[in-house]
């Protein structure tokens, strides 16, 4: 599975994207977030603040309870600020 990071989360994690092989027990966006937080302390910091880390699964906004089954790409990013 491909994981992508945008804006300042990319800087916190130190990379724009990576390929990961998930352990079987990681079944939702929330579980993936927690798993990545274990690898990147500064990602964990961001996740500790409410509403600061948003996610998309296969380019669709997704909440923590969104299942990962079949997903090819998961992205994490701060709230959007375009326009």
């Amino acid at each position, binding site marked *: 599975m491909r994981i992508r990071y*945008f804006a300042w989360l990319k800087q916190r994690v130190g990379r724009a994207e990576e390929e990961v092989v998930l352990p079987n027990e990681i079944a939702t966006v929330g579980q993936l977030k927690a798993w990545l937080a274990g690898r990147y302390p500064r990602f964990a910091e961001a996740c500790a603040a409410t509403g600061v880390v948003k996610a*998309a699964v296969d*380019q669709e*906004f997704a909440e923590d309870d969104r299942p990962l089954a079949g997903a090819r790409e998961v992205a994490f990013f*701060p*709230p*959007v600020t*375009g*326009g």
Partner: protein
Amino acid sequence: MTVRIVEQPFDPARELAAFARGRSDVGAVASFTGLVRDEHGGERILAMTLEHYPGMTERQLARIEAEARARWPLLDALVIHRVGRMLPGEPIVLVATASAHRAAALEACAFLIDWLKTKAPFWKLEETPTGARWVEARASDDAAAARWERREPSSPR
């Protein structure tokens, strides 16, 4: 109906000159242009970089635009959003709508920019004399977008 992400400067006046041109069923054209300001929160802004999520951005913009067409009787709609690094005074985004009567054009234009601001994956990085900083999302943008929320399955999140 057009949605475009552009990496080079664009000219809103030129785009508007071409928008809905030659259509005599159009009675109303509304537009909104967002530009880089030279000041934000009391600090001078030297430049602004717009990052986005290629693929998802286009998908979200197309969805927002389709939602606008579903809600209002639009004869045409245009969304252009720039990405990359730009300078104060340069346009970031252009939204234009065309309809027979003015209410649809005005409301759809406000809707498009309000939803774009909260539902399209763009992020702003400002360069100031003291360094670069990511722009924080504003509660007022969420409030503006929420005005247009409806509890319907067709509504994009």
